[in-house]
């Protein structure tokens, strides 16, 4: 089948849905790729690079729509583009069906199949095609870079000849994909990073990235909703959260808010009074600007400076500002989607509506609007079993435990000794002196053996077995003592024993030596 990619028609959109690398991978699936001339120019991908990867470059978007079975792009299609779709054609792009219902209906009337990359279910199997996550990752990174660019100081603390520079303090609100990316970037730039999320289970992830999780003193319901997103929180919880932020605001130099709730306006988390409380020169990057912003002062797509000198950045095109990177990731997401659509790797698209991922992402198919999809069968993130925090034991309790353990140990040991002694006494009562003298040797040797063997390094267990093989060849002594018998059968059996015991002795020792010689230190 032919897969085509058009140049993004949206003003200022620099991304492209195909890279030469992804084209090569798509070709392995048996498809042919086609791209509109100049589609990659704003992402630093020239038409020649496409040609070198075996992609056909055509002049106009109309050519692509006419000749391809599958069209891929980044932004939702414009009305013109939807009009160009024909029956049986597939369009893969971001779509935001909740906002573009008209377009979706139009496409279904035309009989085209729409696959919305923003509707890919958030289950682990579909992560490789989760374009929202890959774009959010870039947005998180870029948000920190933008804020650093607008911030008049170092992010990292330094002690220089000209004086001491304190590290910047960064607060990331919302530890989703974008938030975690922002945390990672901020910590690696050397800032002291705090992070907050309504889902306490992400605290571990936050801490693993080197940030400090801001805990609230709040008992009650809160947490994750469907599909790995946060659910709206209760008014009490919100109050506790805002109080915490208010407390932090005067200290924080850079705030990055990433809180979004699906299909709702972004919650207001950074209020006007917090902005007022911040120091002049502080920076707020509002990644929720598209949906009204986590800060009400944010102006979409603008950088503004408040009266008290706080910079608020409301850009919504962070991924596009890093077009090369985001094109690479997005093209890979598209490529994975095509891989799932081409299970036979034979160039034949098999649109399997029973597949959770494909079903979820498909919003129109065969003249039907198939959105919203039925609930996915798997939850995005296994609910962590509520972990009972092991109670910290007091020193007295610990001591009591230790004493109890010691007492049981003593009891066991004394009990074993008593039983052992009793058994020995019984044996001693019946067995003759000559036996008992050997028995003492035996018992002592067992003890010595246990003590010695416990000290053997685990890595030397194989040499240990080989050397015990060798020394158990000591049975040769038994055979040697019997060989003097007059009985021919006895002599024969003894000789065989001597023979095989010698194999053990020589073979065991030599192979041990060979093994030990191999162990060398670096």
């Amino acid at each position: 089948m032919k897969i085509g990619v058009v140049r993004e028609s949206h003003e200022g959109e620099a991304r492209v849905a195909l890279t030469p690398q992804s084209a090569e991978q798509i070709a392995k699936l048996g498809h042919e790729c086609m791209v509109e001339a100049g589609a990659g120019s704003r992402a630093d991908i020239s038409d020649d690079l496409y040609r070198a990867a075996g992609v056909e470059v055509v002049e106009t978007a109309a050519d692509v729509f006419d000749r391809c079975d599958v069209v891929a792009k980044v932004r939702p299609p414009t009305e013109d583009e939807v009009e160009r779709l024909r029956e049986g054609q597939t369009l893969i792009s971001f779509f935001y069906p909740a906002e573009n219902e008209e377009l979706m209906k139009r496409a279904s009337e035309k009989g085209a199949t729409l696959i919305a990359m923003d509707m890919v279910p958030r289950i682990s199997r579909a992560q490789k095609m989760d374009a929202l996550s890959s774009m959010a990752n870039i947005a998180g990174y870029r948000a920190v870079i933008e804020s650093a660019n607008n911030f008049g100081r170092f992010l990292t603390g330094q002690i220089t000849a000209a004086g001491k520079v304190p590290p910047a303090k960064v607060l990331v609100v919302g530890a989703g994909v974008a938030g975690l990316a922002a945390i990672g970037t901020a910590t690696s730039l050397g800032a002291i990073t705090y992070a907050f999320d309504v889902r306490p289970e992400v605290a571990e992830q936050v801490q693993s990235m080197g940030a400090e999780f801001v805990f609230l003193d709040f008992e009650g319901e809160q947490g994750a909703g469907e599909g790995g997103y946060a659910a709206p929180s209760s008014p009490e919880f919100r109050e506790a959260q805002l109080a915490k932020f208010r407390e932090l605001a005067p200290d924080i130099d850079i705030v990055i808010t990433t809180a979004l709730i699906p299909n709702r306006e972004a919650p207001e988390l950074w209020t006007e009074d917090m902005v007022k409380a911040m120091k002049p020169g502080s920076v707020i990057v509002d990644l929720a600007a598209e949906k009204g912003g986590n800060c009400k002062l944010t102006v979409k797509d603008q950088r503004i400076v408040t009266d008290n000198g706080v910079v608020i950045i409301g850009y919504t095109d962070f991924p596009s500002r890093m077009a090369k990177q985001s094109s690479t990731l997005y093209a890979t997401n598209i490529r994975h989607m095509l891989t799932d659509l081409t299970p036979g790797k034979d160039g034949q698209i098999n649109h399997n509506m029973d597949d959770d991922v494909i079903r979820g992402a498909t919003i129109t198919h065969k003249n039907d609007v198939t959105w919203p999809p039925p609930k996915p069968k798997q939850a995005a993130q296994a609910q962590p079993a509520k972990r009972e925090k092991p109670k910290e034991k007091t020193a007295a309790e610990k001591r009591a435990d230790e004493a109890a353990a010691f007492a049981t140990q003593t009891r066991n040991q004394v009990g074993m000794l008593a039983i052992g002694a009793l058994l020995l006494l019984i044996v001693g009562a019946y067995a003759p002196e000559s036996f008992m003298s050997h028995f003492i040797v035996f018992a002592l040797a067992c003890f010595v053996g246990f003590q010695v063997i416990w000290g053997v390094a685990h890595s030397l267990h194989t040499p240990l077995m080989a050397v015990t093989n060798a020394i158990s060849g000591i049975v040769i002594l038994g055979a040697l003592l019997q060989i003097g018998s007059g009985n021919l059968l006895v002599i024969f059996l003894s000789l065989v024993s001597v023979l095989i015991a010698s194999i053990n002795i020589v073979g065991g020792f030599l192979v041990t030596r060979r093994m030990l010689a191999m162990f060398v230190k670096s």
Partner: protein
Amino acid sequence: MIESGLQSAAYIVAAILFILSLGGLKDQESAKRAIWYGIAGMALAVVATVFGPGVQNVWLILLAIAAGGFAGYYIAGKVQMTEMPQLVAALHSFVGLAAVFIGLNADLMLGEVLELRYGLAALSGVAPETFLWPIPSAGTLFTTPEALALMERAENLTGFGKSLLAKDAVEIAILRVEVFLGIFIGAVTFTGSVIAYGKLAGQVDGKPKQFPGGHMLNLGALIVCLILGILYFNGAGIWSIFLVAIIAGFIGYHLIMGIGGADMPVVVSMLNSYSGWAAAAIGFTLGNDLLIVTGALVGSSGAILSYIMCKAMNRQFVSVILGGFGGVSGPQLEVEGEMVPTDVDSVADALKEADSVVIVPGYGMAVAQAQQAVSELTKKLRDAGKTVRFAIHPVAGRLPGHMNVLLAEAKVPYDIVLEMDEINDEFGSTDVVIVIGSNDIVNPAANDDPNSPIAGMPVLHVWEANQVFVSKRGQGTGYSGIENPLFFKENTRMLYGDAKDSVQAILQKL
């Protein structure tokens, strides 16, 4: 000719040298010295015995020793390190067989000596029970040619025979118990080790297999052995003890046939232990303290190894020996996600970016003979300034410490080969983990799923690393047949194919 007192002194020195040679295995460097203690001890013991009192046919002995020694030399030089488990099992079987022969000999000689003794007792006019050797006033008592002939035969008894003659009735009863134990343990060790050898060498099917009746058959055989033993104790002839040897041989065969290939570390350690106890039983029979000491050392060594292996699998010794896994109390956790295959390029890229790498080898590495390639990979990565370490689970491979030996052979320095406890806390700060041919020892279900058959088994926490690559032949489950949730984790990628080819392909790309 070495006197009896001197011989005892030599035995003491030999026993001490043996203990030192085992104790020296506490680290790699002292082990290289300690092995010589063992060799010296053995040489001393053999020389002191061969040239000691009561040993005849010295030339025959030297011939047998030379032949056996040459065979041992040949085998030790030729064996591949991957074949160590087989070799160890084979050597166990020799000890078992020798123990059976010596036990049978002891009984044969006992028969002769008893005959002699009844004759002498009748002549000296005392009951056989109260007969004493040497006979007081023998010179005046025995004058007839018959009596003198008997006396001469008694005088000519050497070594073990002479000590038999001096035993009283209780001591002879005890001797019979010892002979029974020696032969029984020896025979179980012999056939068990032969089967273990066959399974390890791939000549016997590694799957557990049993006759109908299973362990009841073993129990029945054991009871028959005990009955025969009681018969033997009460004076039944050598046939009874011979039957014991054969039936015990069957038990050894059947017991080990019923155990799967991957439980072999426990089996081999157990047989190691048995070979020691067999030697100790022979020592009691012959009244030789050096045999007793050595047997006890070897026996306890094997017992401890079995204990360590069982602990590392969180299983009871008995349940390993009887085969099969413990009861499962509920449904296992559903495994979520999918196994994501990857290719050599991505592994190589990840390795290039990584600072710290941990390699987890398992039996699959030995099967694919990939240790050399792994060693080269290690060298290359270390040369590039990366931290490379190995994580060894106690039951990785088919023999305790097997992986260590294989890696040592491939010239991986032993100080980067770490035990499970040493490295388990460090996976969190590791960039890339490569799992080569191991499965159950990296199964997170052992930690997470109380209903898993391996719940509670200590495992390597590889999933805590940033990225895990699993080199594996196919999609199958491990020997326990348990699904491994590690393969489905988000940070795990599967690299299918032969381990050696995969590692070599990675080497090409680096």
